[in-house]
C-alpha cells in the first residue's frame, strides 16, 4: 500500500447474481445493529469468500449536531455537551475543551486544579482502556476479561461519583479550574485504587498475553505502518503501536504533565497484538502518573480568576490533548461574543476509523471484528 489515502474503490451494489464464486464479490452489510461494531457503525464489506476485498464505513447514525449546538450556547453552557462525545472518556473531553477555552481567554488554571485534572484524566484513561480491553476480548471470543475489567472499572467510577456526583458524563472541570474541591479522603481513595489495580492488570495479562489463541488471533492482524498512520492522521495508541513515539503529553505538554516522569510505550510491528500491549503498558504508565500526582498534590485554590461572563477576545485557537483514543483537538473561533462562532472537534475515533479499510484489506472477516475492536472507536465521538 503506497498510497493509503486512495480510499475504497467504488462498491457496486447492483452486481448481478452475487454468489461466492463468480467474479463479483459478495457484499455483506455489517451493522448498524451488530454486536461487534461497538455502537451503530455500519460497515459494508466486500468479500471474496471470507477474504475482505474492501470495506466502507457508513457513519452518522449517532449524529447529534454537537458542534452546531456549541454555536448557540455560551462557553460555560457548552461544557457538559462535550462529555457526551466520547462517553467512555468524558473527563478527557472536558479537559480538552476547558483548556482550549482557557487558552482563548488567556488564563491558566491553578496548580492544584491542574493536578486534580491530571489525576482524573488518567483515571479516566484507565477506565477507557479497561472498557476497550473487555469489549475487544469479547469480540475475539474471550468473554471472561469483560467481567474482570468491568469489576475494576467500577472502582474508578466510584471515585468519579464521589468527586462530582456522576459516573459517566462527569462534567468534572470548569473553565479556569475544577468544578469541585476534592472530597475528604480523595487522595486515600486514589491510592487505594492504585494498590488494588496493580495486580489486576497482571490478572488481565495472565488471561490473554500468552494465550496462544489470543496471540494467533491478534498477531499480524490489522498491520499498519507508522508512515501510513501519519498519512492518515491516525493518533493515539494505534500510532504508537506502529513505532512512532508521539504522545501529546510529552510532545506538547498540557495541564501538569511536564512535571511527571513517565514513559511512552511504543510497539514495533503495528499489529493488533502490539496495540494490545501498548494499551496495557499505558495503563501501567497512567498509574505511575497518578501516583506522582497524588503524592505531589499542591494546596491552593482550585479556580483561577475567571470573569463571571466569559467573553473571549476575537480570534481562533486550536488546542489538542492526548485522549485515551488519540489526539482530541478543539478548534474554537471567537467573534468576541459570549458564544463561540464555531467549534470544531477533532475526534480521534473519527480519524482513526479511516484506517479501517487499509488495515482490513486482504484479511478475513473475523479480523475485521478484531480491527474494529483494536481501533477503540466510540461512535458518539465519530458522529458527534
Amino acid at each position: 500500500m503506497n498510497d493509503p489515502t486512495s480510499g475504497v474503490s467504488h462498491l457496486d451494489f447492483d452486481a448481478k447474481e452475487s454468489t461466492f464464486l463468480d467474479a463479483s464479490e459478495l457484499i455483506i452489510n455489517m451493522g448498524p445493529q451488530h454486536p461487534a461494531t461497538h455502537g451503530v457503525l455500519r460497515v459494508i464489506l466486500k468479500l471474496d469468500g471470507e477474504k475482505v476485498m474492501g470495506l466502507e464505513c457508513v457513519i452518522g447514525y449517532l449524529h447529534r449536531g454537537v458542534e452546531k449546538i456549541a454555536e448557540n450556547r455560551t462557553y460555560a453552557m457548552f461544557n457538559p455537551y462535550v462529555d457526551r462525545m466520547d462517553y467512555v472518556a468524558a473527563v478527557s473531553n472536558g479537559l480538552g475543551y476547558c483548556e482550549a477555552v482557557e487558552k482563548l481567554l488567556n488564563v491558566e488554571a491553578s496548580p492544584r486544579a491542574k493536578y486534580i485534572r491530571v489525576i482524573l484524566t488518567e483515571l479516566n484513561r484507565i477506565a477507557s482502556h479497561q472498557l476497550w480491553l473487555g469489549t475487544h476480548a469479547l469480540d475475539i471470543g474471550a468473554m471472561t476479561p469483560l467481567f474482570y475489567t468491568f469489576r475494576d472499572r467500577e472502582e474508578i467510577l466510584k471515585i468519579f461519583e464521589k468527586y462530582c456526583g456522576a459516573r459517566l458524563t462527569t462534567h468534572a472541570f470548569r473553565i479556569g479550574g475544577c468544578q469541585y474541591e476534592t472530597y475528604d479522603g480523595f487522595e486515600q481513595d486514589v491510592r487505594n485504587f492504585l494498590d488494588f489495580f496493580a495486580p489486576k492488570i497482571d490478572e488481565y495479562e495472565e488471561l490473554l498475553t500468552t494465550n496462544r489463541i489470543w496471540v494467533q488471533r491478534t498477531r499480524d492482524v490489522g498491520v499498519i505502518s507508522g508512515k501510513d498512520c501519519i498519512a492518515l492522521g491516525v493518533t493515539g495508541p494505534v500510532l504508537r503501536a506502529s513505532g512512532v513515539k508521539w504522545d501529546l503529553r510529552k510532545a506538547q505538554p498540557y495541564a501538569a504533565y511536564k512535571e511527571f516522569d513517565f514513559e511512552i510505550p511504543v510497539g514495533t510491528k503495528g499489529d493488533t497484538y502490539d496495540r494490545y500491549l501498548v494499551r496495557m503498558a499505558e495503563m501501567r504508565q497512567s498509574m505511575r502518573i497518578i501516583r506522582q500526582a497524588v503524592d505531589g498534590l499542591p494546596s491552593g485554590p482550585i479556580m483561577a480568576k475567571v470573569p463571571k461572563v466569559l467573553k473571549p477576545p476575537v480570534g481562533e485557537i486550536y488546542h489538542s490533548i492526548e485522549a485515551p483514543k488519540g489526539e482530541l483537538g478543539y478548534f474554537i473561533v471567537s467573534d468576541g461574543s459570549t458564544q463561540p462562532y464555531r467549534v470544531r472537534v477533532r475526534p480521534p475515533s473519527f480519524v482513526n476509523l479511516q484506517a479501517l479499510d487499509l488495515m482490513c484489506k486482504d484479511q478475513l472477516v473475523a479480523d475485521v471484528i478484531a480491527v474494529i475492536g483494536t481501533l477503540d472507536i466510540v461512535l458518539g465521538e465519530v458522529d458527534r
Partner: protein
Amino acid sequence: MTPVATPFFFYMLSGLMVVGGLFVITRRNPVHSALALIVTLLAQAGLYLMLYAPFVAGVQIILYVGGIMVLFLFVIMLVNLERTEKEKPFNKQWLVGIASAVALGAMFVGVYVRGRALLPEHTVSLPEAENTQQVGLMLYGNYMLAFEIASLLLLVAIIGAVVMAKKRI
C-alpha cells in the same frame, strides 16, 4: 439378530427409495433434489442392513450421506443460482430419453422374468457379528491390490478436484 418384519420394512424402504429417486430427477431446486437423494441413500442403508451387510450400511451413511452429499450441498450453495429455477428443468430430448430408459427398464424386467431360473433361492449364512472383521480380512487379503488402486484413485481425485476448483494455484 435377525431382521424382523422383513416384508414390511422391505416395501417401506424400497418405496422410500423409489419415491426419493423420482424426486431427485423431478425437482427444480437442486437442494430439494439433494435432500431427496439423501432419503434414498438412507433407505438404501436400511436395505443393506436387511441384507446382512451392516458394514456397507455404515460406510454408506458415513461416506455417502456424511461426505458426498454434504459436498453436493456445499457446491449447490456455492453456485446458488436463482436463475436455474426459472429455466426449463428438462432438455429437448426428454421424450426420447425417457422412452429409451423405460425400454431399458422393460429389458431388465424381461430378463428377470425369463431368467428367473438363473436366480435360485440360494443364501449363504453371513454372520452379522463378524461381518466387519470378515470384510476387513477380505479387503486386506484377496482384494489388497484393488484396495491400493482405489486409494490411488482417491488421491488422483483429490488432486484433480483441487486443481480444477482452485482459481489460482
